[in-house]
């Protein structure tokens, strides 16, 4: 093998193919983390809004876990 930078003139194709795949892999992790943080932040705000609307002394939460 002629080394990574001298692959029989195919270096450009290899860089694009591997680069796009690397972007997709990294992008998936970044997008998943951002989605989780944004969802958490939005739901926390939603909970705060619900809490502020409830009359004093009312039950804080309702419903049980489960499907």
């Amino acid at each position: 093998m002629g080394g990574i930078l001298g692959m029989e003139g195919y270096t450009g194709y290899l860089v694009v193919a591997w680069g796009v795949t690397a972007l997709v892999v990294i992008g998936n992790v970044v997008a998943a983390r951002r989605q989780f943080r944004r969802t958490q932040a939005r739901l926390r705000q939603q909970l705060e809004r619900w809490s502020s609307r409830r009359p004093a002394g009312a039950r804080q939460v309702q419903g049980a876990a489960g499907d």
Partner: protein
Amino acid sequence: MWTWFFRLASPPHFYALAGRLSTWLLAPAAVLLVIGTWGGLILAPPDYQQGDAFRIIYVHVPSAYLSMLIYVTMAVAGAIGLIWRMKLAHAVAASCAPIGASFTFAALVTGAVWGKPMWGTYWEWDPRLTSELVLLFLYFGYMGLRGAFENLTQADRASAVLAIAGVVNVPIIHFSVIWWASLHQGPTLSKLEAPSISGDMLWPLLTMILAFTFFFLGVLAMRVRAEVLEREVQSRWAQDVLRGASPVGVN
């Protein structure tokens, strides 16, 4: 026998499990990606016909394999959600779509980039390429359909039906090179009696396929956590998690 299944389907249990799983799946995925990349780019010898251009196989095949695996996962999860009315299954299906679309895109781009030096063109309306493009449109259609509904239950049901109907495209993609005259090369790995790739080229490919599979499951676990939290915000356990006072077993 079904106890573990129903326990797994419990949102708080699954939420906690997915949090641990994402780390335990992404760590080996990263290690395997490094080993597979080293093996594919450095250790594997050049192909006698394609030279070093064949090294695109190490990102193209795992991406194409994932694009189909994720679609089948999405369709099976959608079917489970429809049949057993399991909200968690719909959350899994919804989480699969963006991951699958991104790897279908990667498969198409890497295939096009590989096609130019080998076939002399980036794109040809070949059965394999066209059916893979249809798969990308199915993912887009699935996400678009989900976004069109305000009611989550309706979105779950309609998108599950689309996912199940679209799964017929997966065997078409896989067998297209056998059923029709195709510019695309025939099966490389699925010929179990004699894989048409030598051992020193094969092991990095299998390593990359394994790495991509771990990666998909790890990212899926991360995405499903957000979906579950969203769907369970009315529940006490989800509110405890959001307030930072999570009950035992949920973190």
